[in-house]
């Protein structure tokens, strides 16, 4: 991170599901790798939040729009969308790749018996 970069975003006080911790860790790791600056991240996140707010009543206040923790952390679903957009902007991933990979994981879960590790076939 360059000295002039914006400060890193705060994680929520409590992650409410494992994927929320995963997306936070992924964003931090990709930033640390130098793929984007926090100011770029913040720009995209602001855009996502504005789109979500404009989309209106799809989410309830408990989804985090009201920022109940008061620490600036928004709903982690916004982080997921923001990262998808940011990586696509940089041609690091395409929407088709994401859709295909998500479906591959869903299929892996559907076809793996409980008790076996769920992995993607290489």
């Amino acid at each position: 991170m360059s000295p002039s970069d914006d400060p890193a975003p705060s994680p929520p006080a409590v992650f409410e599901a494992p994927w929320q911790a995963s997306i936070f860790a992924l964003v931090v790791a990709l930033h640390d790798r130098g793929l984007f600056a926090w100011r770029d991240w913040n720009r995209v996140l602001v855009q996502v939040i504005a789109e979500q707010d404009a989309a209106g009543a799809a989410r309830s206040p408990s989804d985090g729009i009201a920022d109940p923790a008061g620490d600036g952390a928004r709903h982690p679903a916004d982080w997921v969308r923001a990262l998808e957009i940011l990586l696509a902007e940089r041609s690091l991933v395409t929407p088709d790749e994401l859709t295909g990979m998500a479906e591959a994981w869903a299929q892996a879960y559907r076809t793996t018996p409980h008790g076996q590790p769920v992995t993607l076939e290489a």
Partner: protein
Amino acid sequence: MHDAAGHEDHDHDHDHDPSQVPSDIALRVKALESLMAAKGLVDPAALDEIIDTYETRIGPRNGARVVARAWSDPAFLQRLRADATAAIAELGFGGRQGEHMRVVENTPEVHNLVVCTLCSCYPWAVLGLPPAWYKSSAYRAQAVIAPRQVLATFGVDLPETTEIRVWDSTAEIRYLVLPERPAGTEGWDEDALAALVSRDSMIGVARLPAAAGPRP
């Protein structure tokens, strides 16, 4: 298809249930993770390290409250033994995925260890997020085959006379280990007791040390 987890001689009645498919948002995160890893842009081990950094803010310490209540209130302990899901709900904690909880009690004679081959089988609404090693294939396999050695790697050396019971969480039943109450905590209130209860002790890979000093 079978890995080395020794499922044949372990009592499994859920071997052929399909694994629970995560929510759409969780799948999108998994897709991002695996694509970034495949492209060499992120190291999965680095992600685990970052998550571990935030362990203390991961998940409510609900499980510790349950344990502290069980140590303090014999009637609650009885209800916990009879129907853990309902007893835990008394404290306002519920499984978010509708899972049933079962509490297994450690005693001087019996030590309980929880394992599951899937992170989705971890009662994170009660215990918080699973530690990275909980999902590792080494832990999953070895906990079933050689639990005593696994415990030793965590620094838990049990007498040969202590029976070790390994519980494999399923999509339907999640286990919570009730650790033994540490010596030297007589008269402590529930807040003080709950502060002693570690996540690892509720998985069964740690034993709680005797209280080091007077009640905080």
